[in-house]
């Protein structure tokens, strides 16, 4: 039975219901009444500016705006000054079209709509005797300028990254994809935050079903506040609890443009520099933007290193433990003796020793990630070198273990995408635990379990492991090696159903005459 006092308590209301419901109501034409009604609607807003202007034609006009969200020069010169100089009794359409000097305007009569427009950074004009208001688009919100992407920095190629302003991000995309086929649809998410989200795609390449599915999933979101792309990606993902990121997040316009041209949909959210690429395939996490700027052989070698890094970062601790603790017959005696000698005096069992060291390493990484660069570097040195050496000298850990953990940690950071680092850092632990129970059998068990997980995952209905499973020879080849561009003449077949051809060039092999030092013309 519930405690007696509890029945007097109100049932907690969900957050989105607690939010003040916008009262329905329209303008009356009585300026005092309308102004008060609007103020009442937006009460407790300290940054709301209210100003009354008298025209020479004796019409009273009330201005509402949030001071830090509008271009004050434009408000003064384009709105207040023309109004003060106006000697005629103009109707609202004339005021907007011929009197005021503003880039955009709308008319509205609902108070709720006016409140929303104010929150978006518009100026609202109420007029004495008119039951209609003007919403003037003069917003100017200070934003970060276009900078290098810190999370996806590259040595070669374009460096610019998205910023927090959706409009500017769209402009960046338009400058890269100067075609009318580049489309973007706006959807407003968040009952309170009213965040704008842009759904981008290339008409004629993208599957219409995919666009419809993205829109449907976005519209299904019923939430108070959207903080950005990370929030959105979790809410629209096929498996929000999956360890691996099923939707790739990027800050690079060049990557987004490439994704769009392959027939994908990209979602950008206002207030967040990250874009969500839909769908995403696991193999893409191994690919870097620079790969296609390097010579194929060099880029292929780098991919091989990354792939090796991926394997090492997940499996090395478990494999090492399995070999040393279960299957040491495989290791030659001199090597095994040296490993055993290094462990002499270490008080912890191998698996505990390794887990402690791996956790220590992850703590150092996490601590240095959040620090400013110089402090972060110092932390890395103190943690990685001094702590490791001291631990070995104190006999707390064996030297071989330090090498294994360091190699594992380093390998994790060979991956070009930040989104995959977290999963890699996490996955080594279950592998280690499995191998600590059953040795290589346990490691293989964990591998098959992981394979079963990843092959059953889908990114917006598309198999996450494409082109590995289901196998596609053309796509597969471009995972492990970077094949020459003229072999990539077609888009991924799963994505671009109709329009698969992306280029019609033949490799520029020289003619026989050129090989002999003669020009093609001669």
């Amino acid at each position: 039975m519930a405690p007696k006092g509890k029945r007097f308590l109100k049932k907690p209301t969900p957050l989105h219901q607690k939010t003040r419901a916008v009262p329905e109501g329209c303008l009356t034409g009585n300026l005092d009444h309308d102004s008060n009604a609007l103020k009442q609607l937006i009460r407790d807003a300290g940054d709301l500016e209210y100003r009354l202007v008298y025209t020479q034609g004796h019409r009273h006009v009330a201005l509402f705006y949030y001071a830090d969200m509008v271009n004050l020069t434009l408000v003064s010169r384009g709105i207040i000054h023309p109004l003060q100089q106006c000697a005629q009794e103009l109707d609202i359409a004339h005021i907007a079209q011929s009197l005021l000097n503003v880039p955009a305007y709308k008319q509205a009569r609902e108070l709720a709509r006016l409140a929303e427009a104010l929150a978006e950074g518009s100026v609202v004009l109420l007029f004495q005797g008119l039951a209609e208001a003007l919403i003037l688009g003069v917003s100017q919100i200070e934003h970060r300028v276009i900078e290098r992407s810190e999370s996806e920095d590259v040595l070669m190629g374009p460096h610019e990254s998205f910023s927090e302003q959706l409009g500017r991000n769209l402009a960046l995309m338009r400058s890269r994809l100067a075609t009318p086929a580049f489309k973007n649809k706006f959807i407003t998410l968040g009952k309170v935050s009213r965040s704008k989200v842009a759904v981008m795609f290339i008409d004629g390449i993208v599957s219409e079903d995919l666009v419809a599915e993205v829109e449907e999933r976005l519209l299904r979101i019923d939430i108070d506040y959207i903080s950005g792309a990370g929030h959105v990606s979790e809410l629209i993902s096929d498996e929000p609890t999956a360890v691996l990121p099923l939707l790739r997040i990027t800050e690079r316009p060049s990557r987004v443009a490439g994704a769009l041209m392959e027939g994908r949909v990209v979602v950008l959210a206002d207030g967040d520099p990250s874009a969500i690429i839909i769908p995403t395939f696991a193999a893409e996490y191994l690919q870097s933007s620079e790969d296609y700027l390097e010579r194929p052989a060099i880029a292929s070698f780098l991919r091989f290193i990354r792939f090796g890094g991926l394997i090492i970062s997940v499996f090395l601790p478990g494999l090492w433990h399995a070999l040393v603790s279960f299957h040491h017959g495989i290791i030659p005696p001199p090597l095994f003796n040296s490993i055993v000698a290094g462990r002499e005096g270490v008080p912890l069992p191998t698996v505990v020793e390794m887990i402690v060291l791996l956790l220590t390493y992850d703590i150092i990484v996490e601590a240095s990630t959040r620090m400013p660069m110089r402090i972060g570097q110092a932390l890395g040195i103190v943690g990685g070198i001094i702590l490791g050496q001291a631990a070995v000298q104190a006999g707390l850990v064996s030297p071989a273990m330090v090498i294994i953990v360091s190699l594992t940690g380093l390998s994790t950071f060979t991956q070009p995408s930040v989104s995959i680092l977290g999963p890699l850092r996490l996955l080594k632990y279950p592998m280690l635990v499995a191998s600590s129970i059953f040795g290589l059998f346990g490691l293989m068990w964990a591998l098959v379990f992981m394979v079963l997980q990843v092959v059953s995952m889908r990114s917006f209905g598309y198999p996450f492991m494409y082109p590995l499973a289901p196998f596609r020879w053309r796509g597969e080849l471009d995972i492990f090696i970077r094949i020459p561009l003229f072999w990539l003449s077609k888009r991924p077949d799963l994505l671009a159903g109709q329009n698969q051809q992306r280029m019609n060039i033949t490799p520029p092999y020289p003619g026989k005459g050129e090989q002999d030092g003669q020009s093609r013309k001669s």
Partner: protein
Amino acid sequence: MDNPVRVNLFQGAIAVFVVTIGTVFFPVAGVVVPIVGQAGWIAVLLGFLIPLPWVFMAAALVRKGPIGEWGQSVKAWLGPWVGRVFLLYIAFCWAWLGGLLLAQGGMVFHNIALPATPPWIMSFALLILVVLADMRGVEVYVRSIELLVMVCLPFVTAFYLAILPTMQLENLQPLLGDGPIRLAHAVYLVIPWAMEGILFGLFIGTHIKNNKRFGLTISLAVFGGGAALALLTAFTLGVLGRGVTETYLYPTVELAQTARVGFFLQGIEIFLYPLWFLASYIKTGAAFVVVSESLRGVWAGATQPYRSLALGVLFFAVSQVPNTVQQVVASLGRVDSTFFMAFYVIIPALLLWVSIARKGDPNQSANS
């Protein structure tokens, strides 16, 4: 949004290829060499060549039924009630085989790698994976095979490369010293393995939408599996010689322990452990999935996860019957030579029946 991809022909072929090889990878030389000696690899090759017409019969059957569900196809061939009996027979054969493979998986790992761990624990661990695969459906199982084949490839390549230098060609002579009768006997022991691949091909074929070149592709997969086994038999004979090969139940394990890789690794069992595990998963998983889908065809009320869990109990119970590896191998031989061998008669008869009785009504949906 509909899933854009289901099982395709390539996936089906890969699955048939690895299921055909499966755990036979380990005992193959131990079965044929005691009978036919140095001609063991020829026996294996012939054992996979002779059954190829049955692959085309299976392909013809697949074309005569609806695509998408195994149970529906069988019922379309045989009618609802005879179809159910056939499905039960298939389920019985594969359940027995699967249970024994589960036992084999645990026992072999117990013997070669983890002597302190009871075999049933490893069988149980393997069973968990198989049950999980079945719960997620045929498509996920086939895709997991596709990915695991890529994991296996480096191990298999490394394995062959490591043992190649130790091979002595004189160990393969005389080639046909034991005569044609013993060769025929060895072939007789091999052909049930090919039937396992063909039956799995028949099963997977009912899930493949575009099966125009099904017969040719699956026959290549089955024969490719046989060729890989023949190559392994030749390698085993070449490295160990006939005398040593005859004395082992699993000569491949001995082969792996014989070879040395430089100074770093004592033996190359490290390549073998993952292969053994993956082969056990793939073959036991194939058996489990076939049984599960067959039971679904028999009784639609057997829904997931209860079907997989109940089957898991059944497989585990079967796996606990044999006590030693020798008993497992003998039981596997009996299952192969009786129940799977029978399909060399059943498949042509089934095709004949379907061709005569269901003429003009190829895509008739089953009345379940």
